[in-house]
């Protein structure tokens, strides 16, 4: 972490691209988030399984979004390429306004090209080795989304893949911030992507008892912080943010949606899947992020929580938020709408947080109906979007393996 006395360039978010279960453009996704409209529906891909609904991306035309090369891409790469193209268009950085050798890509993914692995595994099991597509490896390996984004946009800076499970998208933003502060890149496309709504992954999470089982009412299944929450809803999609130094953005007449003020990361070092019951790792990441951002907890007016709707995870996070920020800070979890997009979640939530800062609107926590009596009082935005200025906000992400990441965003 940079010493407080050292000059650091400010970093701003100048472009956002999203592919989500509630819209394949940023505008659609943000509108759905603010309306608190849950994206969970019955999913034919999961028919007959223990949990047969998801927050699936619909209305996504891969060839239209990614061009003819789409057939060479697993959906996790297609989502990333579509989001990256949209983010770059939104930022209005074009050929000639950047040096491709100074533009980096950092993308988080928890799993990688799972649909390709599963499909080819089935083909091999049924029809033998000759049925395996020769493109299986280059479609499915975890780094290929970042590599393909660089290839698609003609970028020659570093392209990196980070994997910290459900914190991957947030970790990617932190790594990107470091690349910009260190002067290794002028622009970084950072975000996360995931396409793991598959029979195997859904079953595996269900076997772990991690998924919500509101099969009769999928739209009400993702219920962060609610007293009747019972697990998360599997989601998919991608978000990519264009990050650049504030002075560079200003020089081309852009102020950006928000500043990326700071980043913190930690490891629980406690358990394979369960959070530290005291939330020590989460607190550590939050403290580091606030310190890196040079803000105090009292400056924070919004927490976009990790809250996935699991009983234990949401409880620990609520205690951490109450302990660090008190009962007054506004808290939302947009996973009530998007479901849990795993490695893309942190990027999508950082994008929503940047939009909250930019527009002074906090999306409600969908399906939050009754507070959990066992949790401390926190101000969970629910029912309707809240219109209020947000000058400093944090976005939390916590992953299996006890990997935690937090970003701090503020007014541009």
């Amino acid at each position, binding site marked *: 972490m940079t010493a407080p006395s050292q000059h650091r360039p400010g970093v701003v978010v100048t472009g956002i691209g999203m592919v989500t279960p509630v819209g394949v453009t940023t505008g659609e996704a943000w509108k759905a988030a603010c309306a608190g409209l849950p994206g969970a529906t019955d999913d034919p891909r999961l028919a007959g399984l223990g949990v047969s609904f998801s927050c699936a991306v619909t209305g996504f035309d891969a060839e239209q979004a990614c061009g*003819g090369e789409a*057939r*060479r891409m697993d959906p996790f790469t297609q989502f990333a390429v579509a989001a990256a193209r949209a983010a770059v268009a939104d930022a209005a950085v074009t050929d000639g306004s950047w040096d491709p050798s100074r533009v980096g890509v950092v993308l988080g993914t928890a799993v990688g090209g799972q649909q390709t692995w599963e499909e080819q595994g089935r083909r091999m099991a049924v029809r033998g080795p*000759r*049925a*395996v*597509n*020769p*493109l299986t490896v*280059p479609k499915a390996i975890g780094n290929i989304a970042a590599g393909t984004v660089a290839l698609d946009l003609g970028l020659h800076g570093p392209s990196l893949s980070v994997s910290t499970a459900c914190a991957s998208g947030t970790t990617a933003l932190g790594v990107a911030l470091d690349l910009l502060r260190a002067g290794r890149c002028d622009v970084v496309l950072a975000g996360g992507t995931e396409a793991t709504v598959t029979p195997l992954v859904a079953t595996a999470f269900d076997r772990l008892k991690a998924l919500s089982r509101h099969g009769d009412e999928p739209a009400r299944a993702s219920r962060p912080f609610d007293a009747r929450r019972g697990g998360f809803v599997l989601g998919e999609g991608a978000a990519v943010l264009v990050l650049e130094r504030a002075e560079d953005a200003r020089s081309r007449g852009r102020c950006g949606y928000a500043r990326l003020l700071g980043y913190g990361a930690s490891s629980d070092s406690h358990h394979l899947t369960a959070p530290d019951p005291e939330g020590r790792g989460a607190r550590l990441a939050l403290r580091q992020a606030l310190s890196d951002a040079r803000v105090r907890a009292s400056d924070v007016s919004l927490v976009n929580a990790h809250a996935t709707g699991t009983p234990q995870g949401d409880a620990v996070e609520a205690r951490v938020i109450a302990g660090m920020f008190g009962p007054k800070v506004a808290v939302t979890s947009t996973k009530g709408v998007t479901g849990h997009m795993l490695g893309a979640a942190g990027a999508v939530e950082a994008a929503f947080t940047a939009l909250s800062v930019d527009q002074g609107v906090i999306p409600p926590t969908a399906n939050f109906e009754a507070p959990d009596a066992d949790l401390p009082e926190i101000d969970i935005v629910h029912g309707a979007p809240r219109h209020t200025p947000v000058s400093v906000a944090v976005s939390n992400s916590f992953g299996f393996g006890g990997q935690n990441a937090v970003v701090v965003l503020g007014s541009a």
Partner: protein
Amino acid sequence: MFVHYLSDILAGTYKVPAPIDPDRSFQQLEVDSLSLAELGAQLEDEFGITIEEEELTPATTVTALAEFLQARGAVLTA
């Protein structure tokens, strides 16, 4: 018959610019090695035949591949 079929695939899936001269090799048509491997797998799938690596190379022409498919007894369904 197979020339027409292959030209359609090359233009549609592999984005080879039309008109496709069937006497040109895949290398001359700028079909890269990854696409060639993919095409081979696609044809094996479609016709239930086996195509060995040396039977479909960058030097193979579309006409030669069409003749190969014919010789292997591949059957085009409408």
